[in-house]
Protein backbone atom coordinates (compact mmCIF):
# COMPACT_ATOMS: atom_id res chain seq x y z
CA UNK A 1 0.00 0.00 0.00
CA UNK A 2 2.85 2.35 0.97
CA UNK A 3 4.79 1.49 -2.20
CA UNK A 4 1.68 2.07 -4.32
CA UNK A 5 1.25 5.54 -2.81
CA UNK A 6 4.89 6.39 -3.57
CA UNK A 7 4.50 5.29 -7.19
CA UNK A 8 1.26 7.30 -7.47
CA UNK A 9 3.06 10.42 -6.19
CA UNK A 10 5.87 10.06 -8.72
CA UNK A 11 3.44 9.40 -11.59
CA UNK A 12 1.39 12.45 -10.55
CA UNK A 13 4.54 14.57 -10.46
CA UNK A 14 5.61 13.44 -13.92
CA UNK A 15 2.13 14.16 -15.28
CA UNK A 16 2.02 17.63 -13.74
CA UNK A 17 5.40 18.50 -15.28
CA UNK A 18 4.47 17.03 -18.63
CA UNK A 19 1.14 18.81 -18.84
CA UNK A 20 2.41 22.17 -17.62
CA UNK A 21 5.40 22.07 -19.91
CA UNK A 22 3.36 20.91 -22.91
CA UNK A 23 0.81 23.68 -22.25
CA UNK A 24 3.57 26.26 -21.95
CA UNK A 25 5.23 25.17 -25.18
CA UNK A 26 2.08 24.86 -27.26
CA UNK A 27 0.49 28.15 -26.30
CA UNK A 28 1.41 30.18 -29.36
CA UNK A 29 4.00 28.15 -31.20
CA UNK A 30 3.67 26.40 -34.52
CA UNK A 31 4.29 22.66 -34.79
CA UNK A 32 7.72 23.10 -36.33
CA UNK A 33 8.83 25.63 -33.72
CA UNK A 34 7.67 23.44 -30.85
CA UNK A 35 9.56 20.50 -32.36
CA UNK A 36 12.75 22.51 -32.84
CA UNK A 37 12.50 23.72 -29.25
CA UNK A 38 11.83 20.20 -27.92
CA UNK A 39 15.05 18.87 -29.49
CA UNK A 40 16.93 21.88 -28.12
CA UNK A 41 15.41 21.47 -24.64
CA UNK A 42 16.38 17.82 -24.70
CA UNK A 43 19.98 18.66 -25.64
CA UNK A 44 20.18 21.28 -22.88
CA UNK A 45 18.75 18.72 -20.42
CA UNK A 46 21.46 16.28 -21.44
CA UNK A 47 24.08 18.93 -20.72
CA UNK A 48 22.56 19.43 -17.24
CA UNK A 49 22.53 15.67 -16.58
CA UNK A 50 26.13 15.23 -17.76
CA UNK A 51 27.32 18.24 -15.71
CA UNK A 52 25.55 16.88 -12.63
CA UNK A 53 27.23 13.47 -12.97
CA UNK A 54 30.61 15.06 -13.76
CA UNK A 55 30.40 17.20 -10.62
CA UNK A 56 29.29 14.19 -8.57
CA UNK A 57 32.21 12.15 -9.90
CA UNK A 58 34.78 14.92 -9.44
CA UNK A 59 33.64 15.60 -5.88
CA UNK A 60 33.82 11.91 -4.97
CA UNK A 61 30.05 11.45 -4.61
CA UNK A 62 30.06 8.84 -7.39
CA UNK A 63 32.56 6.20 -8.41
CA UNK A 64 33.73 5.78 -12.01
CA UNK A 65 32.15 2.32 -11.93
CA UNK A 66 28.73 3.78 -11.09
CA UNK A 67 29.09 6.49 -13.74
CA UNK A 68 30.03 3.85 -16.32
CA UNK A 69 26.71 2.07 -15.71
CA UNK A 70 24.67 5.21 -16.57
CA UNK A 71 26.86 6.55 -19.39
CA UNK A 72 25.69 4.13 -22.17
CA UNK A 73 22.07 5.26 -21.74
CA UNK A 74 23.07 8.93 -22.00
CA UNK A 75 25.10 8.14 -25.15
CA UNK A 76 22.13 6.26 -26.62
CA UNK A 77 19.75 9.17 -25.91
CA UNK A 78 22.30 11.63 -27.34
CA UNK A 79 22.69 9.63 -30.57
CA UNK A 80 18.91 9.36 -30.91
CA UNK A 81 18.48 13.10 -30.34
CA UNK A 82 21.04 13.78 -33.09
CA UNK A 83 18.84 11.70 -35.43
CA UNK A 84 15.72 13.49 -34.16
CA UNK A 85 17.32 16.90 -34.86
CA UNK A 86 18.06 15.87 -38.47
CA UNK A 87 14.53 14.56 -39.02
CA UNK A 88 12.99 17.59 -37.29
CA UNK A 89 14.88 19.81 -39.73
CA UNK A 90 13.45 17.82 -42.66
CA UNK A 91 10.02 18.30 -41.11
CA UNK A 92 10.62 22.06 -40.60
CA UNK A 93 11.61 22.40 -44.26
CA UNK A 94 8.55 20.41 -45.34
CA UNK A 95 5.77 19.92 -42.72
CA UNK A 96 3.99 17.60 -45.19
CA UNK A 97 6.93 15.17 -45.10
CA UNK A 98 5.17 12.13 -43.60
CA UNK A 99 8.33 9.99 -43.68
CA UNK A 100 10.12 12.52 -41.45
CA UNK A 101 7.06 12.70 -39.18
CA UNK A 102 6.80 8.92 -38.76
CA UNK A 103 10.55 8.63 -38.28
CA UNK A 104 10.44 11.31 -35.59
CA UNK A 105 7.63 9.57 -33.69
CA UNK A 106 9.60 6.31 -33.74
CA UNK A 107 12.86 7.94 -32.58
CA UNK A 108 11.16 10.01 -29.90
CA UNK A 109 9.55 6.86 -28.48
CA UNK A 110 13.00 5.26 -28.35
CA UNK A 111 14.42 8.37 -26.62
CA UNK A 112 11.67 8.11 -24.01
CA UNK A 113 12.46 4.43 -23.36
CA UNK A 114 16.16 5.29 -23.11
CA UNK A 115 15.39 7.97 -20.50
CA UNK A 116 13.39 5.49 -18.43
CA UNK A 117 16.36 3.10 -18.44
CA UNK A 118 18.77 5.94 -17.54
CA UNK A 119 16.55 6.94 -14.62
CA UNK A 120 16.16 3.35 -13.39
CA UNK A 121 19.90 2.71 -13.40
CA UNK A 122 20.48 6.19 -11.92
CA UNK A 123 18.26 5.36 -8.95
CA UNK A 124 20.42 2.31 -8.25
CA UNK A 125 23.87 3.75 -9.00
CA UNK A 126 23.60 7.30 -7.61
CA UNK A 127 23.98 6.81 -3.88
CA UNK A 128 23.94 10.48 -2.85
CA UNK A 129 20.28 11.40 -2.31
CA UNK A 130 20.52 15.04 -3.47
CA UNK A 131 22.28 13.99 -6.68
CA UNK A 132 19.72 11.23 -7.18
CA UNK A 133 16.81 13.68 -6.81
CA UNK A 134 18.46 16.21 -9.14
CA UNK A 135 19.15 13.51 -11.75
CA UNK A 136 15.53 12.29 -11.67
CA UNK A 137 14.23 15.86 -11.96
CA UNK A 138 16.40 16.49 -15.03
CA UNK A 139 15.14 13.22 -16.55
CA UNK A 140 11.53 14.28 -15.85
CA UNK A 141 12.17 17.65 -17.53
CA UNK A 142 13.64 15.86 -20.56
CA UNK A 143 10.65 13.49 -20.64
CA UNK A 144 8.46 16.60 -20.71
CA UNK A 145 10.27 17.82 -23.85
CA UNK A 146 9.75 14.36 -25.37
CA UNK A 147 6.04 14.37 -24.45
CA UNK A 148 5.63 17.82 -25.98
CA UNK A 149 7.16 16.62 -29.25
CA UNK A 150 4.88 13.57 -29.36
CA UNK A 151 1.76 15.66 -28.63
CA UNK A 152 2.65 18.06 -31.44
CA UNK A 153 3.37 15.27 -33.93
CA UNK A 154 0.17 13.37 -33.11
CA UNK A 155 -2.06 16.46 -33.45
Amino acid at each position, binding site marked *: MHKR*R*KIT*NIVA*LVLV*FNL*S*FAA*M*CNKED*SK*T*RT*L*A*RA*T*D*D*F*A*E*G*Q*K*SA*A*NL*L*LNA*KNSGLMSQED*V*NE*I*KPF*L*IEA*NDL*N*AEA*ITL*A*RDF*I*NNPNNLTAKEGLISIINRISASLVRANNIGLVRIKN*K*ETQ*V*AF*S*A*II*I*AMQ*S*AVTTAIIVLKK
Partner: protein
Amino acid sequence: MDIEKLIKLIALVQQGILEVNNMIANHKAQEGKTDIEISEHAEKANKEARELIDRL
Protein backbone atom coordinates in the same frame (compact mmCIF):
# COMPACT_ATOMS: atom_id res chain seq x y z
CA MET B 1 4.08 9.82 4.01
CA ASP B 2 6.84 10.56 6.54
CA ILE B 3 8.70 13.87 6.75
CA GLU B 4 11.88 12.57 5.10
CA LYS B 5 9.97 11.39 2.03
CA LEU B 6 8.02 14.64 1.88
CA ILE B 7 11.29 16.62 1.91
CA LYS B 8 12.63 14.43 -0.94
CA LEU B 9 9.47 15.03 -2.96
CA ILE B 10 9.72 18.80 -2.40
CA ALA B 11 13.39 18.72 -3.45
CA LEU B 12 12.42 16.84 -6.60
CA VAL B 13 9.74 19.42 -7.41
CA GLN B 14 12.17 22.30 -6.73
CA GLN B 15 14.86 20.80 -8.96
CA GLY B 16 12.24 20.14 -11.64
CA ILE B 17 11.04 23.75 -11.46
CA LEU B 18 14.66 24.87 -11.80
CA GLU B 19 15.05 22.78 -14.94
CA VAL B 20 11.80 24.09 -16.42
CA ASN B 21 12.99 27.65 -15.59
CA ASN B 22 16.23 26.94 -17.46
CA MET B 23 14.18 25.81 -20.44
CA ILE B 24 12.00 28.94 -20.28
CA ALA B 25 15.17 31.09 -20.22
CA ASN B 26 16.43 29.10 -23.22
CA HIS B 27 13.15 29.78 -25.03
CA LYS B 28 13.38 33.51 -24.29
CA ALA B 29 16.92 33.58 -25.68
CA GLN B 30 15.55 32.10 -28.90
CA GLU B 31 12.91 34.78 -29.46
CA GLY B 32 13.25 36.25 -32.92
CA LYS B 33 15.13 33.22 -34.22
CA THR B 34 13.81 31.08 -37.05
CA ASP B 35 12.91 27.40 -36.56
CA ILE B 36 16.02 26.41 -38.49
CA GLU B 37 18.22 28.61 -36.27
CA ILE B 38 16.71 26.93 -33.18
CA SER B 39 17.36 23.56 -34.79
CA GLU B 40 20.99 24.57 -35.43
CA HIS B 41 21.27 25.61 -31.78
CA ALA B 42 19.87 22.19 -30.81
CA GLU B 43 22.52 20.49 -32.93
CA LYS B 44 25.28 22.54 -31.28
CA ALA B 45 23.88 21.87 -27.78
CA ASN B 46 23.61 18.15 -28.53
CA LYS B 47 27.28 18.07 -29.58
CA GLU B 48 28.25 19.95 -26.40
CA ALA B 49 26.23 17.43 -24.39
CA ARG B 50 28.09 14.58 -26.10
CA GLU B 51 31.46 16.15 -25.23
CA LEU B 52 30.38 16.32 -21.58
CA ILE B 53 29.09 12.73 -21.63
CA ASP B 54 32.38 11.54 -23.15
CA ARG B 55 34.24 13.15 -20.25
CA LEU B 56 32.25 11.08 -17.75
